[in-house]
């Protein structure tokens, strides 16, 4: 995409302390200026904000109770279809529950799982990566081999195995996806720490008597923020898809809770008679994930054009 090329040619941004000092405008002005010039990522961020607002204000936005069953109104198509019902803008599911309301509430689960799993796995991964990179030796070997072993599991398979034992539920799914996600961060952070350890400013801090944790947290951590933020932004997209997949397979949150994945698993059973049940929740997922991916792509180039595609 030309967005990427443009950004690469413009050079590096000024958001991080380690970057070019000549830019005098405050970091956030440069950030939004570049973001809006690139258009597509701005739309991506817009979608993300929209979904976040939708999730927060779900009770005010949803026209119906998302769990209210009205059997006589079951499988109503969206309002623009011939048999559409004005009360149900996007139709109803097999139990007569309002699809629009369930979509709005579904954003909550997707975002809660997406963000909390990413924050937890990011924290674990960054900490372990910092420890591995700074401690070196056996500790490093142990942590990195653990990462290798976990990466040998296909991600979704590991999640399925853990959930099979723990059983479905919101907390379990967040736990599972958090545990499954850390090695990505761990590897990248460790690599960065190893390369920063040899830099003058780190050696200077050590020479001045700074403790190990001070060196790591005060001097190294701020410099490796960029790749971590980039991995995290893509991980949000990946986690939302994983949660939806697990809910679709019946391993996610409880079945009566409205989630996009669980809605699709109902849609699959009614694929012949109710297309809207298998199309609409998927559109919600794709819009969210696309928004995150487009924004993440841009963010990667903005923070550091030299970062590879993860």
């Amino acid at each position, binding site marked *: *995409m*030309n967005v990427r*090329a443009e950004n690469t040619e413009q050079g590096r941004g000024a958001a991080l302390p380690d970057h070019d000092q000549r830019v005098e405008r405050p970091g956030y002005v440069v950030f939004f200026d570049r973001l809006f010039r690139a258009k597509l990522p701005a739309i991506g961020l817009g979608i993300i904000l929209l979904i976040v607002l939708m999730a927060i204000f779900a009770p005010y936005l949803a026209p119906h109770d998302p769990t209210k069953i009205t059997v006589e109104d079951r499988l109503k198509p969206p309002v623009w279809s011939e048999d559409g019902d004005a009360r149900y803008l996007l139709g109803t599911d097999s139990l007569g529950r309002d699809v629009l309301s369930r979509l709005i509430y579904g954003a909550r689960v997707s975002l809660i799982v997406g963000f909390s799993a990413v924050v937890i796995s990011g924290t674990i991964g960054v900490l372990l990566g910092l420890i591995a990179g700074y401690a070196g030796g056996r500790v490093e070997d142990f942590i990195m*081999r*653990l990462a*290798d*072993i*976990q990466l*040998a*599991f*296909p*991600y*979704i*398979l*590991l999640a*399925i*195995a*853990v959930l*099979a*034992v*723990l059983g479905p539920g919101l907390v379990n799914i967040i736990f599972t996806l958090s545990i499954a996600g850390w090695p990505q961060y761990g590897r990248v952070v460790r690599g960065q720490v190893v390369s920063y350890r040899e830099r003058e400013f780190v050696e200077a801090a050590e020479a001045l008597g700074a403790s190990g944790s001070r060196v790591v947290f005060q001097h190294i951590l701020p410099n490796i923020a960029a790749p971590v933020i980039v991995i995290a932004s893509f991980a949000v*997209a990946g986690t939302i*898809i994983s949660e*939806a*997949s697990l809910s*679709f*397979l019946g*391993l996610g949150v409880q079945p009566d809770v409205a989630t996009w*994945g669980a809605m*699709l698993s109902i*849609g*699959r059973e009614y*694929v*012949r008679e109710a*297309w809207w049940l*298998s*199309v609409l*929740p*998927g559109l919600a*997922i*794709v819009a969210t*994930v*696309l928004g995150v*991916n*487009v924004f993440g*792509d841009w963010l990667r180039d903005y923070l550091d054009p030299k970062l590879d*595609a993860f």
Partner: protein
Amino acid sequence: MTAYIARRVFQAVFVIIGVTLLAFFIMFLTGDPTYLLLGDVRGMTQVEIEAFRHEMGFDRPVAIQYWDYMKNAIRGDLGKSYYHRVPNMELILERMPATLQLALTGQALAILIAVPLGVYAAVHRNTIADHLTMVGALLGQSVPVFWLGLLMILLFSVELRWFPVSGYGTLRHLVLPAITLGAFSMARIARLTRSTLLEVLSEDYINTARAKGLSERVVIYKHALRNAMIPVVTIIGLSMGMLLGGAVITESIFAWPGVGRMILTAIQTKDLPLVQSSVIVLSSGFVGINLLVDIMYGFLDPRIRYD
């Protein structure tokens, strides 16, 4: 090269041991797996529960259980299915061909379509075709496998009636699941081919090749593409993991009788030993594939061997 291969094989064996260890201990996440397997224990006497625990060997120390499991695993015995009452290995091997058929077809489709598309997009950079390819690739990476599968069924089976909704056996049954499964890696491979080729095309030796008066075709296919393929090969290896994972979902949507679908039914029947063994086999297979990729990598790029 021999030393390089030996080192990689050693690492792979180590990782596989780690995989079994992890898969084994997942069963013990909630403590004693006895209750996990039995599910509802109401109506069972304590004696019956104890007998079951003893029969399954859960009354022994975990380390010993693992040791025995591994001793048997080396001989190809992965324990017995709690539900089917036959060896797990037998069940897995029975369903493996279907999974491999699906995963390999999906991957082959992905490579055959994605690499030429990526090359075309890179060579015709910033044209409409390039933009369309990249938008398509971005979309392909953002669409969940299971939704794509549903849409395929909706469009090609329910509406157009070109392909069967689900099932296994003929080539027509294979088309939709293979496309569904391959879509994500297709998108990823196309993007990566394009970006690495663009990077390679800006190298000095490409300018040299052009300056020598070589035709653009020779420059791209003989000089640039070969070098650009190195990261692409890695991603192809890594995406086999995604494919094996995605197979669980794809198989479930299309009622494809593979290992993935068996894992899901095993979860429903609380047949955790079967889940555990299937996960170990699939993950070890993934390790094996990446070992092959690493070795291939060593042949493609001599610098790697001296890491």
